[in-house]
């Protein structure tokens, strides 16, 4: 097999893994806030975090350009102070994947948090543990299954991310051209042999990940 298949594959994995780590950390925090706290604007936050699930990836990409571009709302300060822009780097691909995968993590994790027996949480309080320790010792371990499922979904979504990534990270071979983008390039330039190889390889790798994830979440059950 052509060695050039492995470069976009490695890039895809690298982007998806980095995005998943971010998704798990931020998603868990957001899920906790949404599941256990009441505050003004909670509904709005919920909608904002779910929106990427329903918006077309091009719209996400467009927003990212608006915010993070060299002249974007945040990007211009970043560029002003550091002379660096996230656009057309693999970080931009991570950011795009993170945004589109985050709602999947939040949906499953929030549901898992909310399904923890309220009495267990109350018992933990009466046994002298505050909210923080109760979260780590009771809520988190009892939500393991849902969180693993959320992380797997997020990873899968990040692996398959195409539209937003293309808009903010471009199609630079070896730098930002992830597997889906490389496949698109091959197919649109008529390099069918390469496209076939990449599609098959990508399918196998994705299936293998799902298999591992299934095993993991089964072990998380008691």
């Amino acid at each position, binding site marked *: 097999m052509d060695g050039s298949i492995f470069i976009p594959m490695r890039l895809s994995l690298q982007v998806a893994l980095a995005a998943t780590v971010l998704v798990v950390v931020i998603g868990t925090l957001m899920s906790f806030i949404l599941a256990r706290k009441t505050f003004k604007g909670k509904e709005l936050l919920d909608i904002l975090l779910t929106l990427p699930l329903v918006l077309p990836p091009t719209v996400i990409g467009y927003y990212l350009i608006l915010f993070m571009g060299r002249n974007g709302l945040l990007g211009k300060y970043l560029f002003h102070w550091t002379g660096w822009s996230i656009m057309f780097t693999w970080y931009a691909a991570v950011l795009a994947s993170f945004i589109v995968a985050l709602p999947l993590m939040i949906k499953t994790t929030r549901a898992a948090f909310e399904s923890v027996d309220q*009495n267990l949480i*109350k018992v*933990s*309080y*009466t*046994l002298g*543990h505050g909210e923080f320790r109760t979260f780590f010792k*009771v809520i988190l371990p*009892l939500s393991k299954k849902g969180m693993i499922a959320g992380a797997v979904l997020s990873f899968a979504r990040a692996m398959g991310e195409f539209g937003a990534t293309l808009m903010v990270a471009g199609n630079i071979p070896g730098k930002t051209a992830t597997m889906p983008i490389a496949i698109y390039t091959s197919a649109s330039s008529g390099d069918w042999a390469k496209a076939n190889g990449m599609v098959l390889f990508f399918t196998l790798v994705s299936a293998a990940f799902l298999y591992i994830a299934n095993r993991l979440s089964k072990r998380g059950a*008691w």
Partner: protein
Amino acid sequence: MIEIRVEKNLGNFSLNVSLTLQKGITVFFGPSGSGKTLTLHTVAGLVEPDSGVVRVNGEVYFDKKRGVNLPIHRRRIGYVFQESSLFPHMTVFDNIAYGISGLSPGGKKERVRLMIERMRLSGLENNFPHQISGGQKQRTALARALAASPLLLLLDEPFASLDNPVREKLRLDLLTIGREEHIPLIFVTHDVEEAFVLAEELVVLNDGRVEQTGNKEDIFYRPQTHKVAKFFGSRNIFLGKITDIRPGEKIMTLWVNEKGLQISLPYRKGTAVGDPVRFCIRPEEIMILKEGRPIKKSLQGNIFTGKIVRIVEKGSEHTLFFKQSQDDYDFEISISNLAYRSLQLKEGQGVSVAFKWESIWVLSEKTFQPGQTTAASD
């Protein structure tokens, strides 16, 4: 000492209780929806009262006026729920160790071992909650609450979902704990037997209010209200009107209109002919007279002749429904199986029944209007 003075309005239900509790086991008794659990929740901090004060051993847990509301995890209150609420991802050992603080790892282990031994859980240390029985689960929950050295232990119908023999054993365990731990225990139940086995002090709640507090004897034999008399099985509760007073003989006669019953009571000062009186007689205080036997003097005045209209077996005793008047039945009588057999009673049989003056308890509540003389036997 525990002081609970709280009010809480929940729209269709309002709680307004004021209680002072000492060491030992206090039982909150009442029908479901009477506010027992809500009261516990205000003490534990699980529910914030609208107003009032909660103080434990002098420390203010809640004081609306002063704006004090100590968070749950700083109240040091043990809470055992009805459904076993063990952490499913922890072993029996880890569950019990969960609330222990301020001890070295070695000291912690020692404390857990002690609790395991006391609650008869040896050998189950490494089991997960789904691997042990219902009774073992509740014993673990008790051990876990006690291991954390609470200042106060709240038990919200902890044995309600257990089988009877298991429940009886656990009650005895709890009595031992009550004696050994020098902390107040509040036990919520709607089971009369459970209330009596456990209570040193009883608090009867109804509809968000305290109906009566007192020891078992007070509640059982000297109920203050119609409701308390009803809850604790004074099946024969009547409302009558005084028809005759003979202070010289220390007797007053009461006429229970609808029933056509005439009953004599010891004279009470301050009563006058025409006064309404609500009184009750416990079903086990009514005697069935054997024919041909001389009648004791103490029974004279309250002897009734009629017939047994119905007999219901209730395990260790029989309930007889006695009728003298045209009514459905006049008295409910409980007799032991032994007495039942020796009397050879049958439905429809004519008998005479009697009770002593001392068995008549006059309810002091004045909730009824003077002149209202309909009999209430519910």
